[in-house]
Every structure is written in C-alpha cells, then in structure tokens.
C-alpha cells in the first residue's frame, strides 16, 4: 500500500454564516499528482490554506507526512513547496535574488542553495532574465518565477494553487510540463484549478469540489464512468422528419436525442460503435448529412451531472 502523504478528515471552515469547507475529507498518496477541481469560490484555496495551517479551522484533522499539521510544524513545512494563486515575490529583488531568498528560507547550506537556485532557474526557463525585476517580466514569466520560488528547495510535497491563471497557452504548456517533470523526479503534487483540461491532462486522481464539499473522487476515467453519458454525437442534417427522429431515438444505447437548426444531437449511455450504427441508419434511409462530431464525456459533463451547473459558471 502506498504511503499517505496528506490526510484531511472532516474539515470544516466557516466564515460567519458561510461554510467555506464543509466536512471535507481526502487522502493523497505518495507520488500522485492530485487535482482539486472546482469553480471559483468552491473552497479549493481555503482548503489549501487550512492544510498549510495558514487558516484556523472549525473542525477536522489534518496530517501531512503522517504527523499532525500545526502552525509550528517546521519539520513538515521544510518538506513542502507552495506556489500561491497570487504571485508572491519581492518587487525590489531581481529574479535570481527572489529565488535565492525563498530557497534560503529552507536551505541553509550556501553551496547547496546556489546549486538549487541554478537548477530552479534552468527548470523554469528564466536563465535569460535573472537580473530582471518582476515588474519587467511578462505575465507568463512572472508565473514561472512564482513557481521557481516555490519549488527551488526541492520539496517532497508541492502545492500549486491555480498556477496558470492569466497565463498564455505557451507558458501554460511549459508550466504543466514542468509539474509533470517535478512529479517524475519524486515530488507529490497537489494541483488546484478550475481548468478541467489541465487537471485531466496531468492529474492521476481528481477531487471535484463545490460549495466546500468533495463531490466526487477518482481518476478522470473513473469520474467519467460515474455519469450516464458515454458519448455525444452531433451530425449536420439539412432535413430530418419526425418519423426518422423517432427511429434514431430507438437505436441501441440512445438515451437522449434532439434535432434543431439542422443539427442532430444524440447522447449514448454506453455501447460500442455508436457512430457506425447511426451513420448506417442515415445511409440506409438515404438521408443526406454533412459534418459529424463524436465527443467523449469531459469532467465538465461530470460536474454538470453532479451539480446541475457548468464548471465554468
């Protein structure tokens, strides 16, 4: 059985009347990239802040590396790297100095620190910018600096809270590749985001959060298998009478079918070769059709089915 790195039990955090985290429980195993997915305001950052003992909480128990996490748990803190949602660097220090400063809070040996700082600079692709002050960096580079400051000391547990907010696609890709690389090098990663594509791409397990609750937990495939929809097929058909529409609805595994504005949308609850079946029907009945799309369910569909609202709402 894998070693449990983070254990959250029945966590409750209230802000007066508002329950920000509502009896939230979680276990994260060593070597995972664990995704905490939820819309803005779902309680992800509050959970992370409680986990780090930055926030006091009303109820629950938190363990990291098998020990209770407290504000003065310096041994535990020494093994954690945090990348904040907001960029947390000093405007007055340049790139090198910022990384060196934050790395120095964890690593006392100067020679080792220098080596770590150089590696963090190389890892984050900031070698050309070491003399630059944060104000001179683009949004993407600034995010990379933020990450470099958080991971330079080679932590065993890295917590990244929405690290790609307001980042261009190129920088986002670089950041995601970097996180995967950190994980390959042995770090356990907790990654919070409201971008389902990112979470789906890099996370080995995902918890879906809303209103402070843990709604679903599992791998991306496990989460998708929890919902009825297994495939959605969209076909452009100029003319389709009601008789044919009813016939398509009777095809195997079809549980939802609609036709409007020349587009037929059919949802399937399992089954294989659904696309072939429906195209065969159209050909056999000499019904003309144009573009065809087949979409597998996304985490957004999972979120939609669980909460009744879109993840991006």
């Amino acid at each position, binding site marked *: 059985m894998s070693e449990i790195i983070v254990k959250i039990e029945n966590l409750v955090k209230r802000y007066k009347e508002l329950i920000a985290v509502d009896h939230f429980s979680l276990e994260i195993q060593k070597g995972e990239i664990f995704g905490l997915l939820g819309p803005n305001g779902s309680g992800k950052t509050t959970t992370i802040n409680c986990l780090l003992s930055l926030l*006091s909480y009303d109820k629950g128990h938190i363990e990291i590396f098998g020990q209770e996490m407290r504000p003065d748990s310096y*041994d535990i803190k020494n093994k954690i790297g945090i990348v904040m949602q907001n960029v947390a660097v000093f405007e007055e220090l340049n790139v090198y100095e910022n990384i060196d400063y934050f790395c120095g809070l964890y690593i006392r040996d100067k020679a080792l620190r220098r080596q770590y700082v150089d590696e963090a600079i190389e890892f984050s692709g900031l070698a050309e910018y070491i003399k630059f002050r944060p104000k001179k960096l683009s949004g993407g580079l600034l995010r990379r600096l933020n990450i470099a400051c958080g991971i330079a000391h080679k932590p065993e547990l890295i917590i990244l809270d929405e690290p790609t907010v307001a980042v261009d696609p190129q920088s986002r890709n670089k950041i995601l590749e970097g996180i995967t690389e950190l994980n390959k090098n042995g770090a356990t990663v907790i990654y919070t985001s409201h971008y389902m594509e990112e979470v789906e791409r890099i996370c080995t397990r995902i918890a879906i959060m809303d209103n402070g609750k843990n709604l679903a937990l599992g791998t991306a495939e496990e989460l998708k298998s929890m919902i009825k929809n297994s495939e959605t097929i969209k076909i452009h058909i100029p003319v389709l009478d009601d008789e044919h529409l009813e016939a398509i609805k009777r095809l195997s595994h079809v549980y939802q079918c609609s036709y409007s504005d020349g587009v037929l949308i059919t949802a399937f609850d399992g089954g294989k070769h659904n696309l072939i079946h429906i195209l065969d029907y159209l050909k056999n009945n000499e019904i003309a059709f144009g573009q065809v799309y087949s979409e597998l369910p996304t985490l957004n569909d999972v979120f939609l089915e669980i909460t009744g609202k879109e993840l991006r709402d």
Partner: protein
Amino acid sequence: MFGHLYKYRLKSLLRTKEDIFWCMFFPIILCTCFFVAFSGINEKTNVFHTIPVAVVYQQDNEIFRTVMDTLSQSDSQGEAFMDVTETDAGNALLLLHEGKADAVITVDSSVSMTVAEEGINQTAVKNFLEQYLQKSAVIEDAVKNNPERLTGLMQNLFSGQDYITEASLTDSSMDEMSSYYFSLIAMAALFGGFLGNTIARQMNANITNEGMRKTVAPVRRHTIIAAEFLAAYTIQLMSMALLMFYILCVLQIDMGNQAGYIALTCVVGSLAGVAGGMFTGSLPVRENLQIAIYLVYSLISSFLAGLMVHPIKIWIEKKVPVINRINPATLIQDALYSLVIYDTRERFFANIITLAVYAAALCTLSCLMTRRKSYASI
C-alpha cells in the same frame, strides 16, 4: 538564517523608492527649505544696512547739518546710520523715486520727511527725526559747547537703554530657529516608521502574498521579526546620520556641543519611529490604509511638536501637557531642545526614557500581533 533574512531585507528596503524618499530624502529637502526660509528671515531682521537719505536745506541749519555729518560717519561696527546726499528738492524727489534714497528730509523752519513707501528704513529715519525734534535743545547745547561729545550723545539718544539684564540658563548660544530643526529631526525619526510599516506588512500572511509565503516557510517568527526589524532600523539610522551630517556639516546649524546626546536622541527616536510603523503595519486593515494611518499619525505628531507652527507646542504645554509627555515627536524635539537650554540632563533623560518605553511597548504589541500563527481569514 538571521543573516540571510537581514541581508535581503536590507537590500529590498534600500530599493523601495517610496520608503527611501520619505526616510532619507524628504527630511533633507525639508531641511533645505527651512534653511532657505530662515536665512531670509535672519537677513531681513538682523542685518542692518546704512540708510540712504537725501537732505534738502531750504533754510540753513548748522546744528542739523552737524548731526547729519555725525550720523554719516561709521560707528564702532563700521556701519554708518545714514548715507546723506545734500541736494535740491527736485533731485531729491528723483532719487526717492529711483530708489536711491529711502527718505527725503526737508530742512526749513522745521524738519520734515517725505517717503515713497513704508519700510524698516523709513521707520528708522522717522524715529530719528522724532527723537531729534524732542531733544533738539540738548543736541544744540552739545554742538555749541562740547562738539567732541556729540557722537556719544547721538548713540545714547538714539539707541535706547536697557534697564534689565538678560540672564541665560546655559552657556549654549542657541539660534531661535533651531527648535524648528529639532522638530524636523523628530519628524525624520518618526518617518522611519515607513520602513517598519513595510516590513510588518510583508510579514503578515493576511496582508501580503510575500507574508503568506514567509508564514508557510519553516522559519520561526521571532527570527524573521528580529532580522527584518534590525534591517529597517539600520536604514533608519543611516538616514538619520545623513540628515545630521547635512544639518551640522553642510548647513552648519549650531546645535551646541552635544554630539553624543544628539546621537542618542536619534538612536532612540528612530527606534520609536520604526516600532510605530511596525505596529501600524501589523494592524488587520488593508495595505493602503496602513500606510495612510502611519502618514497621518507621523504628520500630526510632528505638527503637535511644532514642526509647522512652533508655538503650538507651548500652547499644548499650557492647555493639555499630557500630550507633550506622550507624543513621540515632542519627546524627541524636547530632548534636543533641553540639551541646549538646560545644563542638567534630567529633562533630556526623562524624554529619552519615555521614548524607549514607548518603543518597547509598540515592539511588544507588534510582535504579539505578528507572531499569530493561524489566521481566521486571509
């Protein structure tokens, strides 16, 4: 760890333009403004220049002419009271309008004066003529019988006589304007609070992101507080040293021979300043509001110490003396003031001890607020 925190805090504070401006350069700029303004006042009030006058004799008056000749001669300080030009009425008016004469004295059966504008010189000439007319009999007698004593008589007649002797409390020769410089030094000490404010803000996770990152790092809070406070205090002491060098060596303002005590005042005053800033920086309010609170506090404190209007401090001493006992700017200003006024050091040390207690209290409160480890909200 301490050295690492201290080094980087020193570096980042030295590059914080706003704080360095307020702590290091603003007091020097203000000091220069004071110097320029006070130099003007000194010149206008203290420096006497010979008054040019035109005298028109429409009727010969030998006694008056003798008096004018006497007043045209240099006195013991090498400065004559009047520079007399004898001329006709038309030319005299021309000199008056061209500004070459401050007054025209017309001598006929009486003595009268014409001026183009009012001023110190015109008032002096007028006073002289009034004195002359009142004491013409004495002067006439002196001219006729003892002309060699006329110069001495003139000095006695026109210089006035003091019947009360001023006794100084100290041997120090304090410039009256020095109290403004003392208030300015007090303000400069309190402005160290901007540095204290910055370090406190950047230590607290509920105020800044940097504070959040520091809070999750495996470093004890008291180590961070001590290192950062010391860095801010170092820069503040550098600022004060620069200001004192500027006041004493560049502007050459006389503050008596009390360098050690002045330095002690700056050291303790700066401590109170940085501590005050750290306290406001630890308050659980928004970043900009913290800065505003400290700016208002330091300016009001300096105002009450007489930075803008010196008599305010005296007025407070009469009406609400307790304010002067607790206002840090007044304590600094008064410590410096007492150095040059009194020969004993009781009042000086009373001020210094109060300041030290004030600084210690604020430091303790700031630490208690900053060392809080988990926040209710961020």
